[in-house]
């Protein structure tokens, strides 16, 4: 059986691992299927960090066969990363790749994790979280996911509001604004998307500042605290992302599969994938012996 694989090593032809290259020239259909599978993976996010698993370096490899069999291997910054979030990423990757037209069979393998066997088996059997961790969990992960989407909305609020404030809008002016009043930006698109996922208003007429738990507009005395919390949430997520990246880099020498448009040149301010890798370089990569 012919398989076409892209791994950080074999796919080193392009800056982000794309376009894929293999020793044996693959057929056009295989290449396009692989591209489609990778594009699907870009839509899978780490729910805690609110960032695609591809830009985080969590996708170790992706393989497709001419027969439509896809295998994705995922890896995380530590052996003990929280099993509930790990499960969500494996399950979401499974769903995303399975939905690609032409993919007939999907396997997602989480590597090097204490609960890998349980998670991989549970996702493959479509067992859900509670059955996968029978006796150790009481429910599925919808609430957990929603909690972290609300954090993403708070962080996104800071990302959208900070440039407005810097450009001269007063904090008192923000609650009167709607999403349609904000100049277009990737951060705004992302905020709308996260709000829509939660079922919160996300159209042009929707208020810019809302309580992510209730959807109610923020106004009056609540504004300064809301903005402070938005910033704190963003910083918390970004700091975690920075630590996760450093840990992953220590654990694995390779960069992982990344979409070509997003390389290492991320910036600490603004931008869609934001913030998560600061402009100051991560200097934790090199290792000295003692």
């Amino acid at each position, binding site marked *: 059986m012919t398989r076409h694989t892209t791994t950080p090593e074999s796919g080193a032809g392009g800056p982000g691992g794309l376009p894929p290259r293999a020793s044996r020239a693959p057929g056009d259909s295989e290449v396009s299927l692989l591209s489609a599978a990778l594009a699907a993976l870009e839509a899978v996010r780490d729910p805690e960090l609110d960032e695609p698993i591809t830009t985080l370096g969590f996708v170790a490899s992706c393989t497709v066969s001419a027969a439509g069999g896809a295998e994705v291997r995922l890896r995380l910054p*530590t052996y003990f990363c929280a099993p509930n979030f790990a499960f969500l990423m494996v399950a979401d990757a499974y769903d995303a790749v399975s939905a690609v037209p032409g993919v007939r069979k999907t396997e997602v393998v989480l590597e090097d994790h204490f609960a890998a066997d349980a998670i991989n088996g549970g996702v493959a059997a479509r067992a859900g979280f509670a059955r996968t*961790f029978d006796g150790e969990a009481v429910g599925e992960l919808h609430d957990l996911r929603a909690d972290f989407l609300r954090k993403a909305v708070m962080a996104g609020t800071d990302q959208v509001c900070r440039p407005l404030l810097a450009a001269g809008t007063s904090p008192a002016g923000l609650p009167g604004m709607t999403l349609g009043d904000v100049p277009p930006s990737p951060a705004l698109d992302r905020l709308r998307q996260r709000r829509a996922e939660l079922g919160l208003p996300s159209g042009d007429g929707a208020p810019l500042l809302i309580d992510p738990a209730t959807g109610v507009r923020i106004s009056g005395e609540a504004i300064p605290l809301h903005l402070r919390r938005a910033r*704190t949430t963003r*910083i918390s997520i970004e*700091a975690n992302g920075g630590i996760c990246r*450093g*840990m992953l880099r220590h654990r694995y020498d390779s960069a992982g599969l990344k979409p070509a448009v997003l390389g290492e040149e991320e910036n600490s301010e603004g931008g869609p994938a934001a913030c998560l890798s600061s402009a*100051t370089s991560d200097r*934790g990569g090199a290792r000295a012996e003692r």
Partner: protein
Amino acid sequence: MYEKNGEKYFVVDGHMHYWNAAPDNWVPGAEQYAKGWIECFHAYMGLGPPETHWTIEHFQKYSEDDLMKDVFEDGYVDVAIFQPTYLKEWYKEGFNTTERNALMGERHPGKFVYNTRWDPRDGDEGLKVLRQNVERFGSKGCKLYTAEWNNGSRGWKLTDPGSYRYLEACQELGIKNVHVHKGPTIWPLDKDAFDVADVDHVATDFPDLNFIVEHVGLPRIDDFCYMATQEPNVYAGLAVAIGALMHARPRFFARVMGELLFWVGEDKMLFGSDYAIWEPKWQVEGFVDWDFPDSDDFADYPRLGVAGKKKILGLNAANLYGIDVPAEYQLKDGGTPGAHEVLAGQPEEHAVSGA
């Protein structure tokens, strides 16, 4: 003691370890967890300056001499607080127990504070051991790791009924300081194991205890900050915040410090090196030199001056633990004494336990 620009800093390392994570201490059948745990710790070390990195072999098991040199001789620490982590399901003798710490520490009088630990799932037997540890080692603090695995259970919350019995015992036994460290697992597994809401509850229910949230609640700094700002007896343990960010991600470090200074305040932040994950030397030096980057992004955060750094590096912890601080290290005029109002101005009868 650390001195810079004529200022003298009394250094209390509020969070450090003396562990044995070498293969000779791995529980048969649980080797993968023992190995995974120490490799995870070692990866954290990778976030510090390259010249301070150790080999994994050295990191698994370092000697008493290594610790004394790294922490006291080179690392400027005056008093170090041992925070035990047992993990006996993975490590035969435990990862670092109260006993292991104290047996080593008793050869160095006055240098260490021996915190103990408890786990509500250990029931009556655990309560007995807690009493014994307080008697033997004079523990005035305890370290709680809520993600510890215990007989098929992957973790617990401070609000569990069993936990209240232990918190009541802490009050009765004179344990003042409860260090809380959250990890990746809990029961049930579908909940966020890092959630700090349980600390909020018990801090309200036990106003005479101090709750030091280790690693500033990482990865939930945001939740921790909102909680800490409302609870007078909740403190921020800076271990990991400094070690993982100050060198590797200086701008994030500045943001995190800004948030902590805003929500928690310099009177309630405690330095901890998390040795042997990171050596204290570079952390103390870097922290004393640290300031916000010169940028509008940081303009509205509270500033941190020499007095604030003195509090965070040692005076706050000294207050919480009743550690005598010589006059030359005390704040001169201008700085507030810091730390807990209940303890401030009421010197404890005991000096450093084990002294």
